[in-house]
């Protein structure tokens, strides 16, 4: 059962309801949305593909790690895949905490980690007819020393 990755529209309201907590004074939501322009090029179509078995596991682990690192009460992450349109939400992070500092830091950590560790790939088709997988972050391979480099096919 896929819990964190979906090919349906991401809806905020169910996540807000699901995470309600009377201990919490702070809610921080991050949403990633599809932009019309990327690096100055007009985007006409966008697709996210996923290696689901590992993506599900990583998203669940990132939620747990975020809860462990910060003084927060809830952390939920959802990522959409498949064909998206301009303005659509591609990813949502919802954090609730007693206080706002931890909520902001945790949401920032969670989305940064999603972008670095979850096997999902963004493919864009441009108005000039070209297309490309967007430059990405190599998944960390614990035994290797090189990290942080990027590669892309044009």
């Amino acid at each position, binding site marked *: 059962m896929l819990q964190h990755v979906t090919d349906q529209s991401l809806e905020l309201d169910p996540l807000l309801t699901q995470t309600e907590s009377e201990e919490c004074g702070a809610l921080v939501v991050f949403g990633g949305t599809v932009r019309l322009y990327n690096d100055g090029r007009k985007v006409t179509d966008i697709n996210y593909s996923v290696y689901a078995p*590992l993506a599900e596991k990583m998203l669940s682990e990132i939620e747990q790690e975020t809860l462990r690192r910060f003084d927060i009460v809830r952390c939920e992450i959802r990522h959409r895949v498949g064909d998206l349109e301009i303005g659509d939400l591609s990813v949502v992070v919802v954090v609730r905490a007693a206080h706002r500092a931890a909520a902001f830091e945790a949401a920032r950590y969670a989305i940064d980690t999603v972008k670095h560790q979850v096997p*999902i790939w963004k493919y864009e088709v441009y108005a000039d007819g070209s297309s490309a*997988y967007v430059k*990405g972050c190599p998944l960390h*391979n614990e035994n290797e020393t090189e990290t942080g480099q990027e*590669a892309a096919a044009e």
Partner: protein
Amino acid sequence: MSADGASDRQIGVECYGVLQQVCGGRERRVSVAGLPATVADVLEGLARDVPDARRYLQHTACAIGDRIVQRDARLEAGDTLVLLPPVSGG
């Protein structure tokens, strides 16, 4: 699995992201000299079959199921090696 020796010395490979594009499809089979084979053996076999893929392999992580594996991990007949080039979710 067929009974002939050639397919017994093949490992299934699943390619994602730019590697799916470069390899012309998500799934393929790569021949290796013998089994079990290491991840490095399978990557070398893929680079031989698809030379354009070679430059992406250094920054490609590999997985079996939901586990990231190292270059010296071993694959048996029936295993599938999943190739995960740099990710761009979010």
